[in-house]
């Protein structure tokens, strides 16, 4: 009898051990906020967005506000407090989304300066971040003649743009815009079109399918005393193709060419890192297939970064209508 009881007890214990241990991959919700702030001296208004993180068990996080939040950005001794507002996004007719954000018109972002972000709210720990805004980039081109007389030069020539970057810049790219005026109903209206690096095909000026420059890492030294110069080139052939599209769209009588504008976008380290990670870690040479993580918000998630625009303008003759190349 005792043996039977003992055996039964062992069997019972064994099957009790076999019971399922409940498991959840979720830890307790972290008490952190999500902050997105991007400063740029090229805008008159600066935004910072602050949202709560939600439980991993919730299906869809919302871009809710965090009540009682105070957002401060300081530079040296000066402090700017952002005001909370609601941004209205019209998704379609009658369908709008309200996104809470913190804004200021009073903060003029200074190139080369260092800004500190502080976000304080009653229900979360304070989070902070620091960013250095890139100083002015210097652009120059030896392609003025090609820009002004594209039909007189070989189509395979490159319009070279050279630039000296800020030491705070990790990534950059250069965009090439053509500014022109179009005669509509008796008045001249300004328009602009971006010239791609490679124009693949198009269905009119509004539907250009091409390869456009994108953010890439700098290849030169970041020494503040260095004279390292980055160079990018646009082929005359692509420039000509865009001119041809413009003139085909409006007719040569209705076009006045105005300017070629090269726009240098400089991005500091934090924004660059976050941007690359959030946009699928696009390293062509990597043998890795996993995804890294990045945030520079101490005590939170998101990013606090900065970028700048600098431009080089080349005046163009009013008539650049296509003609047989020399």
């Amino acid at each position, binding site marked *: 009898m005792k043996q039977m009881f003992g055996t039964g007890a062992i069997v019972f214990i064994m*099957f009790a051990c*076999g019971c399922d241990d409940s498991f959840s*991959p979720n830890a307790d919700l*972290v008490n952190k906020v999500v902050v997105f702030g991007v400063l740029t001296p090229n805008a008159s208004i600066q935004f910072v967005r602050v949202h709560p993180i*939600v439980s991993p068990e919730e299906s869809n996080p919302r871009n809710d506000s965090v009540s009682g939040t105070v957002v401060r950005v300081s530079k040296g001794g000066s402090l700017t407090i952002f005001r909370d507002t609601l941004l209205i996004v019209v998704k379609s007719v009658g369908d709008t989304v309200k*996104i809470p954000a913190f804004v200021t018109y009073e903060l003029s972002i200074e190139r080369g300066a260092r800004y500190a972000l502080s976000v304080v709210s009653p229900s979360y720990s304070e989070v902070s971040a620091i960013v250095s805004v890139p100083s002015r980039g210097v652009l120059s081109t030896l392609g003025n003649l090609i820009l002004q007389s594209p039909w007189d030069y070989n189509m395979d020539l490159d319009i070279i743009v050279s630039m000296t970057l800020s030491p705070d810049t990790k990534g950059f790219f250069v965009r090439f815009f053509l500014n022109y005026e179009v005669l509509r109903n008796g008045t001249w209206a300004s328009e602009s079109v971006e010239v791609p690096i490679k124009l693949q095909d198009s269905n009119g000026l509004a539907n250009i399918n091409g390869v456009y420059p994108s953010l890439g890492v700098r290849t030169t030294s970041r020494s503040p005393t260095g004279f390292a110069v980055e160079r990018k080139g646009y082929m005359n052939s692509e420039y000509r193709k865009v001119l041809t599209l413009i003139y085909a769209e409006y007719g040569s009588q209705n076009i006045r060419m105005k300017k070629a504008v090269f726009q240098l976008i400089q991005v500091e380290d934090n924004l660059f890192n976050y941007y690359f990670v*959030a946009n699928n870690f696009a390293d062509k040479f*990597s*043998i890795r297939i996993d995804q890294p993580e990045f945030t520079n918000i101490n005590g939170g998630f998101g990013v606090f970064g900065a970028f700048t625009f600098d431009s080089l303008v080349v005046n163009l003759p009013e008539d650049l209508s296509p003609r047989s190349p020399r």
Partner: protein
Amino acid sequence: MRVFTSYFILQLFCFTTCLTQSADIRGIVSDSSTGEGIPFASVRIPLLKKGTSANNRGFYIITNVPPGEHVISASSIGFIPETRKVSIQSNSKLTVNFKIAPQPLEGAEVEVVEESKRELTERLSSIHILGQKEMKLVPVTLQEDVFRSIQILPGIVSTSDVSSQFYVRGGAGDQNLILLDGMRIYNPYHALGIFTVFDSDIISATEVYTGAYPPEYGGRLSSVVNLTTRSGKSTSFSGKSSVNFLSSKAEIEGPLGDQIRFIANGRKSLFNTPLNRFLARDTPLSFFDFFAKATIDAYEGQAKFSFLSFFSGDKLASNTLDEPDYRWENRSFAFTASGLLQDRFYVNSIVYGSFFNANKDVKASKTQTSSSTEVKEVTIRAEATLYTNSKDVYFFGFEFEFPDLTYNLTNNTGTRISLSSGPLYVSAWFHSYFELNPFKIDGGAHLDASSLIEGKSGYWFQPRITASVSLSQDWILKLSYGRFTQNIITVNNEDDLVSLFDAWIAVPQTLENEHSDHYVVSVEGSPFPRLSLTSSVYYKDLGSLVTYNKDKVTAQDPDYVSGSSKAYGAEFLARASSSLVDIYMSYSLGWVTITSNGANYLPRYDRRHSIKALSVFHVSTGLDFTLRWDYGSGFPFTPSVGKYNRLKFPDLFDGNFATEEGSTYLALGEKNSQRLPPYHRLDLSINYRFSLNPITANMGLHIINVYDRKNIFHFDRNTGQRINTLPFFPTATLSVEF
């Protein structure tokens, strides 16, 4: 080190001067039923208190025997000891070959630790030697498996039921050196890693070194598994055939004339249904392996020449276009020669080619990328053992390794990348076993000449030493130290749950070779004749470890960076044996942390506590009842800590980010900061052996996870799906031998 070198030279001098004045007895200890050499058999002259252990081919030599008549005996676990009376004259060499008869396993009282193995384990630390008997003790999972058997050893961790891959004392999966008769095997797994490509019937002995291993092994940081294959019967032809729920196998062996014998063994998958159930998903897998070996015995069996080949192949072809097809195969060829070159100079050499290739074809899958890998290795290796008048033994060797490594893949951006390297690795080693009262010392060094030439590492000189001292008649204290390097690694993500095949690459030129230092202190003893106890503490400092660069953002950032790791722990092992029951119990306590880019984390194979218990009840003649229980504390995992909408800034440089809604993003907590529930499982086996002349049959009933424990294998955070490891799972085996 200088003292050690001086001693070494002095001993070598004594050896050469004393050589001509001694009488030696040498020979082969073999199985009388098969003619196979018995690895690590014990040979003794009891009255002289002299003795030795055979090497892994059954060869032994006892030097400096005084002239006269002596009684000499040979024994090994599972064999009936044999005693001979021999007469030896001064300055002579006497060959005494033993052919000892196997003892029926059931009802036979066996020693827990055989004398010869004890000698070897006295010399070295962290070594475990498993013969065929020990291998067959472990309950089978679908079918017998060498690596599943070694997982009963302390310090060895497997991350799941569905993988034979193992992690030793906090080392990564690619830090284990797998040798088959001296050939390096790069991917020794079948069927998603459920079992190995080596049929346990071809293995005569398995040496497992879990740390501080001797200088003849190099190129890996954590452990060595050295498998010695059988040579086939020299007495008669015989065959064996068996079938289980997954595969069938056939084996034939026998003599071809007086001096040649062969063995051929093949396995082929038969059914998929058990595997589908085993993995809880449709797994259209087929596999095969084939091993053939021909051995020429010359000079009274004291020289041996072998040709061997080994093939294995796996194909996992999915029925749907969205799931990739996998294929991988091994091909190995070798010529080995071993024997006495001079009176006391035993040489073992091998020339081999080991080839491995694998391919992942993603077909129409949009979520995965294609890859393939290939290893072509040709190696020449020679090692010599020099016996002396005293018990001192010297070991020397060198190796030229020509691996050709290729890895092709398509990465996240759709770019096809090909990495290839064809380095030459040259290494040499020496060590000596000698007594320096009160210590017995096995010390020497492994020289990694390639690292020296490349100027890549200051670790080209790798000292290794084990010193043992008797604390009492029954207890030994051992202190071990070893330094190791590794210059090829696998590129698999360390967080992968199941790795179908390993892609090997050379350590990137910009990084230091991986290196580690092992420190082991152990106490071993047999307080009772049928009980042996071993306890060890270890500290493993992996000063250089190649880890993923988790902070990589741009193409300029390297994929890999130098990290480091530290592992330490304690192990306890008890073995008891009687005619009725064999009991094996081990407990391991371990910690391992990896440091990479300034961050510390636990790797996913960090197991704090591990208990393994195995008991085999010899119920009656031919009937064994085996129970195995494993417990392991939970592995680390990275928890989810929240969700938020992550912005990707598609219009940022057009002046707008403030109104982007973002997309759902799961935020993870600190890497591997939480633990899965503990793992435990009870397996049961009933084996019945019977004879119907001339046939011997073995029927087995095996139940995996007797109490149907739900051990977690994987949890998909996105879908919430939990996948458990093996459920209650009965299988059966039948093998017939004639």
